[in-house]
């Protein structure tokens, strides 16, 4: 029977089982379950948000149904908590164990494979089928936190070079501006560009699943593997659906993580058939326009200079009562 692992003895046994199978005990997690036999833990698994992790079965008990039981329990409980899509990272050699449980391989890169339970990617792509026009299409993936004249310049340059430009706005809620607000700023700021289509990334590009360290600036070395998975997934599964042949990106003189991501794009995407075009960052006052520069100015209350960095549509939002609530946490205004 699958039970929750809660007591310190449970956790000690879980740690020992994980280490015996070459894994690590990785906090945090939302839920951890296991199966005991005569007081000894023989299978373990945990869920953190949408990701299943720390899945291990004692060598003496492998080949049976214990993994199935643990995954069933984690998915069933997660579903009740409101999670509708589940992911697992494993080695490509172990991926078939999950494929028999109806997990689907999203992308594999080097020693890591990312699989998804259910048909989330297919349903995500199906949402946009009617929006795609055949042609020489391009893509930008951006957080737009908030949407600046730098983004606008990149979008204009890219849109002029392709038939249809898809602007993927990062869905993840890890930014100062919530997704809904970012999406609206992007839609309002690009409404006059006829061949630009604004869509969301769901969990399939620059998300806490595909690229968790993106949101921790100057991330750890593990970030390199995640960038490769993120970009492989984009090139193999997302770009073909949108008939995207070129990915556009702004040059990155400021942020280490983003610069490394750009560098990884040049390395990974062209061999998979996606051209990468890096466009020089637009300047204002001899400094590159960036969303972080706008956020810094907002948080310091320097509102005068912001008009030179963002389109009117973004400025209107930032100065609306809804916008002010987002950046002026102290409520001084």
């Amino acid at each position: 029977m699958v039970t929750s692992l809660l007591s310190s003895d449970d956790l000690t046994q879980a740690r020992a089982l994980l280490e015996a199978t070459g894994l690590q005990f990785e906090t945090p997690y939302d839920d951890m379950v296991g199966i005991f036999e005569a007081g000894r833990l023989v299978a373990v698994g945990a869920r953190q948000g949408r990701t299943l992790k720390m899945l291990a079965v004692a060598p003496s008990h492998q080949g049976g149904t214990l993994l199935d039981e643990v995954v069933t329990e984690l998915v069933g409980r997660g579903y009740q908590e409101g999670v509708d899509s589940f992911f697992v990272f494993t080695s490509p050699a172990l991926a078939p164990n999950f494929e028999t449980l109806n997990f689907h391989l999203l992308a594999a890169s080097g020693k890591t494979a990312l699989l998804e339970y259910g048909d989330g990617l297919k349903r995500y792509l199906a949402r946009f089928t009617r929006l795609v026009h055949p042609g020489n299409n391009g893509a930008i993936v951006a957080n737009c936190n908030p949407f600046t004249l730098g983004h606008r310049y990149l979008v204009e340059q890219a849109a002029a070079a392709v038939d249809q430009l898809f602007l993927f706005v990062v869905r993840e809620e890890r930014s100062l501006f919530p997704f809904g607000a970012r999406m609206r700023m992007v839609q309002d700021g690009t409404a006059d560009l006829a061949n630009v289509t604004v869509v969301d990334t769901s969990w399939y590009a620059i998300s806490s699943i595909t690229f968790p360290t993106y949101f921790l600036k100057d991330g750890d070395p593990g970030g390199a593997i995640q960038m490769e998975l993120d970009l492989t997934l984009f090139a193999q599964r997302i770009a073909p659906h949108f008939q995207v042949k070129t990915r556009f990106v702004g040059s990155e003189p400021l942020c280490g993580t983003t610069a490394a991501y750009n560098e990884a794009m040049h390395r990974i995407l062209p061999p998979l058939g996606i051209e990468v075009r890096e466009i020089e960052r637009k300047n204002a006052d001899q400094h590159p326009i960036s969303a972080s520069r706008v956020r810094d100015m907002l948080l310091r209350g320097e509102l005068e200079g912001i008009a030179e960095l963002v389109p009117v549509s973004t400025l209107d939002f930032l100065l609306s009562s809804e916008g002010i609530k987002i950046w002026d946490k102290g409520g001084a205004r």
Partner: protein
Amino acid sequence: MKIVKKAQAGTMQSSDLMVFLEPAETLNVTIESTVLKQFGALIRAKVDEVLAKHGVEAGEVRITDRGALDYAIEARLETAIMRATEG
């Protein structure tokens, strides 16, 4: 019967299936199976039959199957329907 809340039944073990039900405006059934090529049409027919028997006319129905026999499909789906419709 009307699906009024999320519910789930079944397991991921071989010869079993997992059923996920959610309220929705229209009826939308998606089936994934390790034997979809061979038995997809039969699974679908069974699912439609059970939904009709219980008068389920709307809802998001997601099934992931690992080769369950038809009485297992019926039992799991009925269980999920009971859980999704009860007060």
